[in-house]
């Protein structure tokens, strides 16, 4: 056993298999997948299962800043457990924030009355709103781009589905008064870069229309519990349908401003080429002639219960399971193909828990013959968008929504 496997062994007790997750009491021979083989070789070599404080072992992509992805087996559940939810940070100073004396400062030149809110103010003064939504890093599956592009080499696990509880950003802003010249709302969290070197602080902005959307929340609960430290305690932004880059964690300030925000993490970071993707939501004040900030997620799916190459007995039924999601229009169908995409059959959709959440699906079949068989899955949404057969290349590796494939071995 080489050193790397040893590290993987000691840092994890997690058994990943098609059927789910168990914690072994005895030493076991267990397959541990660090992600699809299409990831860069260096990514697979450097990955290991590692538990941050308060978290289950997750797939470590980088230690500092901490970037950890959720093993796909967890996605067989409708909701992703808080202690298995992925972790993504851009800068290295991540303070532990206590509920008190934490204050959220609202200001900016286009806000009428600057105000400071405590956690109690926030939770007691505004209507409590609950919704289920997918939180997915813009760069999820970046590591699967061919050719590879630099960045955190995420596999499939920089995402999760949770029940969020919070208050509407709109209610909070309206109470303080939004001036007519407001253009964008700017969000900063407690995390920061290395001050001596002026590493750009992670600060994001939203267009007014999205900030004032009834579903955009300042959230303080996740799956019925306070937010975990690593996922934004005590309060984070929830921007349903949009990439998680906007879901600023450990919120400290919200500023309503009268001209477009200029900061590294808005421009040039988190940009997609204009006109390449079928996105509906626009962020016009940030658009340039050639690119635009990433906005809503494209329609997508994942097979969650099949390991690549998994063996099935002849005559045995195969249950394929997975989930599908999009930018908040809602999943209309998930279809499965067993003949390389020549014909497609509808999968059975699971419970609809809201258009921003993911939708589980399943498909049962009996393979007709022995040998290798490729199962393909393709989701479509209610505005007629579907997954792509050819990857749409872009410099930062966003919006990977290829039709999904898993190859099984029968006999």
């Amino acid at each position, binding site marked *: *056993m080489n050193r790397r*496997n*040893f*590290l*993987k*062994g*000691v*840092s*994890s*007790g997690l058994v990943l298999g098609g059927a789910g997750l168990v*914690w*072994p009491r*005895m*030493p076991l*021979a*267990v*397959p*541990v*997948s*660090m*992600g*699809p*083989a299409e990831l*860069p*070789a*260096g*990514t*697979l*070599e*450097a*990955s*290991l299962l*590692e*538990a941050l404080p308060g978290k289950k072992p997750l797939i*470590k*992509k*980088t*230690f*500092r*800043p901490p970037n950890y992805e959720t093993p796909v087996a967890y996605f067989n559940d409708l909701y992703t457990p808080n202690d298995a939810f992925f972790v993504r940070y851009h800068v*290295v100073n991540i303070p532990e924030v206590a509920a008190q004396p934490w204050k959220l400062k609202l200001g900016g030149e286009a806000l009428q009355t600057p105000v400071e809110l405590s956690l109690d103010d926030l939770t007691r003064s505004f209507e409590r709103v609950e919704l289920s939504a997918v939180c997915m890093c813009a760069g999820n599956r970046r590591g699967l781009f061919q*050719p*590879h592009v*630099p*960045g*955190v*080499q995420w596999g499939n696990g920089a995402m999760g589905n949770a029940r969020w509880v919070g208050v509407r950003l709109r209610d909070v802003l309206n109470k303080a008064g939004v001036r007519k010249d407001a253009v964008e709302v700017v969000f900063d969290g407690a995390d920061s*870069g*290395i001050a*001596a*070197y*002026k*590493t*750009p602080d992670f600060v994001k902005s939203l267009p007014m229309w999205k900030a004032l959307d009834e579903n955009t929340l300042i959230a303080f609960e996740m799956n019925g519990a306070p937010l975990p430290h690593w996922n934004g305690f005590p309060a984070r932004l929830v921007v349903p349908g949009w990439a998680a880059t906007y879901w600023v964690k450990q919120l400290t300030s919200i500023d309503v401003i009268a001209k477009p925000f200029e900061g*590294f993490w808005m421009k*040039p970071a988190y940009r997609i080429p204009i006109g390449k993707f079928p996105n509906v939501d626009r962020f016009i004040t940030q658009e340039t002639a050639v690119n635009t900030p990433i906005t809503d997620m494209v329609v997508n799916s994942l097979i969650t219960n099949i*390991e*690549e*190459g998994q063996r099935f007995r002849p005559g045995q039924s195969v249950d394929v399971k997975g989930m599908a999601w999009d930018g908040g229009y809602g999943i209309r169908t998930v279809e499965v193909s067993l003949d390389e995409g020549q014909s497609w059959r509808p999968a059975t959709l699971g419970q609809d828990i809201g258009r921003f959440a993911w939708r589980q699906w399943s498909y049962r079949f009996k393979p007709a013959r022995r040998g290798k068989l490729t199962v393909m899955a393709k989701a479509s949404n209610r505005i007629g968008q579907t997954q792509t057969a050819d990857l749409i290349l872009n410099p930062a590796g966003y919006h990977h929504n290829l039709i999904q494939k898993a*190859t099984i071995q029968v006999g």
Partner: protein
Amino acid sequence: MKRLLLLVLLPVTAAAADEGQIRLKEGAGRELVESNCAVCHSLDYIQTNSPFLDRKGWEATLSKMVNAMGAPIPKEDVPMIVEYLSQYYGK
């Protein structure tokens, strides 16, 4: 089998891995790379972004680190760092 499967035959013990265990490949320039890059981030950023960047790709990365992220890398160290990264973590 396309996906990486690793057989782990060990009992579960409490031992946390950390970035101190990262060892970059031996070679001319390794210490220079470690001392410059690890000031701001763990060295697995280099490992994980390999081996697919060519020299131009590593040059662009260095340029981003210095110009956008504020990395305090002395100008005279840049060529050696690019050389090491291209040779040991390049395509």
